[in-house]
C-alpha cells in the first residue's frame, strides 16, 4: 500500500496511531527489505525503517525518533512551565484570578494556528528545519519570561510560548519520513504520548529548580525568573542537536524531498471539503476537546489547586501534579490498545463504546476530584481521571483513521486543533471566574465532559453501525468500499484516484468485528489487480 507521495495530508498518515496493521515491525513478505542499503535496521525500498525500537539511537531512524519526541517534550515543558510556579508569579505580578485564567487560555490558544501552519512549513523546508525553526525561534519567548512585570506581559509571553506546541506536527511528519507506514502507528503514538509527558514533568522540574535557585540565595521574585532559563536552554540545545544530528530523509537528501513536495496529486480544497462535510469530523473535534483539552487544562490548574486547597508546599504540589501528566507514558497507548482489542471482538461498535466508557469515566472522576475534601481522595480521583482522559485520547485516534481515507490528514489536524480549543474553552468557562472556586470548576468540567462525550453515540458508519444501531441492510451501502470511495466523484474515479481507498477498504474489513467471515465481495467493484 503506497501513499500518493506528497499529497496534502499524506504526511499525517500515522498521526492517528492506529493504522489497521499495528506492529513493532513489518514482516518481509509484506514489505520488501532493501538489502542493498547499509543501515543498522532493516529498511524498505524508500529506506524507511521496518523495525521500531524505542531505545535505539541508531542513525538516522532511531536518532530521529529520539530527537523528535524530546523536542516535543521540551516544548510541553516550556508551555506549562509557569503553571506550578503560579503561586509565586501571582504575588510578584499582582495577578487576579482572571489574569491567571486568561494566561492559561492564552498558553493553549496560540498553537491552534501554529499547528495548522506547521504542516505547510514542513512541506516547504522539511521537518528538520520545521522543528528547529520553531524550537529555536520560541526560545527567546521563554527567556522573555524574565522581563515580565505585569499581567498583560505575562499573558502575552505565555501565548507566544504556546506556539511551540506545533512541534507535534513536525514530530509526526518527521517520523513518517523515517518509518514504514505499517508501523508508523505505534511510532507516532509513542512519540505523541511521551511528548505529552512534558506537561507532567514540568510540574516536577520547575518547583525543584525554583527551590535550588532560592537556596543559592535569590529572592523568590527573582528565583522564578531564573528558573525559566532552564527550559529556554533546553530549546536552544535541542534546536542545535536537531540541526546538527538530524536529517530530513534516511538518505539525508533534502533536495529530493523538495521535489516530492511539489508533486501534489490531490487538491487541498477537495480534501478540506470532504473533511468539513463529514459530520463525524465535527463530533470528534468536539470529543477531543474533552479528552486532550481537559488534559491540557488540568496541566495548567492542578498544581495551584493542590497548593491552595490543601496548603501544600510548592514542590509537594508539583509532585502530585506531575503524576497527572506523567501517566501519559502508559495511559495513552493503553487507550489505543483497548480500542484495538474492542475492535477485534465487536468491530467499530466496540471502538465507539470503548471511547465512550473511557472518556465518561474521566468525566466522572473529574467531577469527584472537585468534590474531594481530603488530600488522599483528591489524589486518588485525580489519577483515575488522568487515566480516563489520556486513554480516551489514544482511543480517539483509534477511530479517526476510519472516518475518511482521503482527508485523513486534515481531519487529524482539525481534531488536534479541537483539543486545544476545548482546553481554552474549559479554562475560560471554569477557571477564569471568581464566581466559584477551582474545586467547583473541576466538578463543572467533569459534568461538561460527560455531556460532551454523549455525541459519540451519534457516530454511525453505514457499513459498521454505531453504538446502538446495526449497519445498514442495503447491500451496496453496507460495504467499506462504498463508504470510502464515496469521497471521489465519477471523474476522479475514472482517473483511478480512489485506488488507495479501495485497498484501505479491503484492509479494514476487520472493523466488522466477529462478522468479518460473512463479508461478501461487494458488487460492482473489481478486485484490485496489481
Amino acid at each position, binding site marked *: 500500500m503506497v501513499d500518493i507521495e506528497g499529497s496534502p495530508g499524506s504526511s499525517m498518515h500515522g498521526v492517528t496511531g492506529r493504522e489497521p496493521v499495528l506492529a513493532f515491525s513489518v514482516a518481509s513478505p509484506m514489505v520488501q527489505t532493501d538489502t542493498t542499503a547499509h543501515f543498522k535496521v532493516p529498511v524498505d525500498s524508500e529506506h524507511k525503517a521496518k523495525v521500531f525500537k524505542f531505545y535505539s539511537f541508531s542513525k538516522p531512524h532511531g536518532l530521529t525518533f529520539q530527537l523528535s519526541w524530546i523536542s516535543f517534550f521540551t516544548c510541553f515543558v516550556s508551555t506549562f512551565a509557569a503553571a506550578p510556579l503560579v503561586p509565586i508569579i501571582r504575588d510578584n505580578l499582582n495577578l487576579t484570578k482572571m489574569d491567571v485564567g486568561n494566561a492559561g487560555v492564552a498558553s493553549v490558544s496560540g498553537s491552534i494556528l501554529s499547528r495548522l501552519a506547521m504542516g505547510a512549513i514542513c512541506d516547504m523546508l522539511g521537518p528538520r528545519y520545521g522543528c528547529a525553526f520553531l524550537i529555536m525561534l520560541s526560545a527567546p519567548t521563554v527567556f522573555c519570561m524574565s522581563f515580565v512585570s505585569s499581567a498583560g506581559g505575562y499573558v502575552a509571553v505565555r501565548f507566544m510560548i504556546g506556539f511551540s506546541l506545533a512541534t507535534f506536527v513536525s514530530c509526526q511528519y518527521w517520523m513518517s519520513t523515517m518509518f514504514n507506514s505499517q508501523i508508523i502507528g505505534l511510532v507516532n503514538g509513542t512519540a505523541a504520548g511521551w511528548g505529552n509527558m512534558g506537561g507532567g514533568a514540568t510540574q516536577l522540574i520547575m518547583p525543584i529548580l525554583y527551590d535550588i535557585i532560592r537556596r543559592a540565595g535569590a529572592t523568590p521574585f527573582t528565583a522564578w525568573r531564573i528558573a525559566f532559563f532552564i527550559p529556554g536552554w533546553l530549546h536552544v540545545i535541542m534546536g542545535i542537536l536537531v540541526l546538527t544530528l538530524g536529517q530530513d530523509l534516511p538518505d539525508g537528501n533534502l533536495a529530493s524531498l523538495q521535489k516530492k513536495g511539489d508533486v501534489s496529486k490531490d487538491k487541498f480544497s477537495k480534501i478540506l471539503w470532504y473533511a468539513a462535510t463529514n459530520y463525524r469530523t465535527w463530533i470528534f473535534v468536539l470529543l477531543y476537546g474533552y479528552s486532550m483539552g481537559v488534559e491540557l487544562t488540568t496541566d495548567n490548574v492542578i498544581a495551584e489547586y493542590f497548593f491552595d486547597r490543601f496548603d501544600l508546599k510548592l514542590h509537594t504540589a508539583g509532585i502530585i501534579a506531575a503524576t497527572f501528566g506523567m501517566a501519559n507514558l502508559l495511559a495513552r497507548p493503553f487507550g489505543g490498545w483497548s480500542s484495538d482489542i474492542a475492535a477485534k471482538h465487536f468491530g467499530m461498535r466496540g471502538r465507539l463504546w470503548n471511547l465512550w466508557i473511557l472518556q465518561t469515566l474521566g468525566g466522572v472522576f473529574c467531577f469527584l476530584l472537585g468534590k474531594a475534601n481530603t488530600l*488522599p481522595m483528591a489524589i486518588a480521583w485525580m489519577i483515575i481521571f488522568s487515566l480516563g482522559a489520556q486513554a480516551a485520547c489514544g482511543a480517539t485516534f483509534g477511530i479517526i483513521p476510519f472516518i475518511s481515507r482521503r482527508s485523513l490528514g486534515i481531519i487529524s489536524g482539525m481534531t488536534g486543533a479541537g483539543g486545544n480549543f476545548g482546553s481554552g474553552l474549559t479554562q475560560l468557562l471554569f477557571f477564569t471566574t471568581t464566581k466559584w472556586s477551582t474545586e467547583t470548576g473541576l466538578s463543572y468540567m467533569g459534568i461538561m465532559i460527560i455531556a460532551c462525550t454523549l455525541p459519540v453515540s451519534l457516530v454511525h458508519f453505514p457499513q459498521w453501525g454505531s453504538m446502538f444501531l446495526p449497519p445498514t441492510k442495503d447491500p451496496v451501502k453496507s460495504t467499506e468500499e462504498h463508504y470510502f470511495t464515496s469521497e471521489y466523484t465519477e471523474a476522479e474515479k475514472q482517473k483511478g484516484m480512489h485506488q488507495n481507498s479501495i485497498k484501505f477498504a479491503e484492509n479494514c474489513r476487520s472493523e466488522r468485528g466477529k462478522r468479518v467471515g460473512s463479508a461478501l465481495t461487494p458488487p460492482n467493484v473489481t478486485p484490485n489487480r496489481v
Partner: protein
Amino acid sequence: MSTLSAFFVVSAVVLSCFALTAYGALFSSLHQTLVLNSSPTQGQVLQSGEGQVTVTWSLNKSNPGRTDSNYKRVKVKLCYAPISQVDRGWRKSDDNLKKDKSCKYNIVTMPYNSLNNNFTWIIDKDVPTATYFIRAYVYDSVGEEVAYGQTTDSHKKINLFHILAITGRHVTIDICAACFSAFSIISLVGFFFIEKRKTKTSHQK
C-alpha cells in the same frame, strides 16, 4: 512507573494526613485585648526590602475580668486588607484560623509581655504589592490562639498602608536573557545559510 509513584505518594499522604487537624480556633471567639500601634500612617506607601515598620503593643487595661494568665506568646503578622483580597481566592479570610489565609507574613514572634513591647521590622523582599494592616495573635501554652489585637477597626477600613513589591528583575538577568535569545536566532539563521550555501556548491560541482 507512574502508577507506582502515585501509589507511593498516596500512601505517604494517607499516613501524614493523620497529623493534620482541620479544626483550629475560631477568630470570632477571640477577644481583642491587645492594643496595637504601628508606624505607617493611613495610605503611606512603603518599599519592600527597604521600608521599616515599627510595631508597639500592650495589654488593654480597660478590660476588667479578662486575665492574661494564659497568654504565653505573641505573633505579629502582616495581613491583607479587603481590597487586596478581591478576585484573589488564595488570600481569603476564614473564621477557622487554620484555614485563614489573610495573614501570611510573620513580622515577629515574641514571648508575651503586658507592657512596652515594640519591634522594628524591615519589610521582607517576598512581600507582594498590596494594601495591609497589622494584627497580633496571642497564643497560650498549647499553641492555640486566645486573643488578638490589630491596627485597624473591625471593618478593616482605617489605618491601612501600602507596600510596593520588588520587581524581581535584575539588569544581569535581562542581559543574559537577551544574549541567549540572540544566540538562538543567530545560530539558527547561520546554520540555515551555511547549509544552503553547501547544497548550492555541491550542486554546482
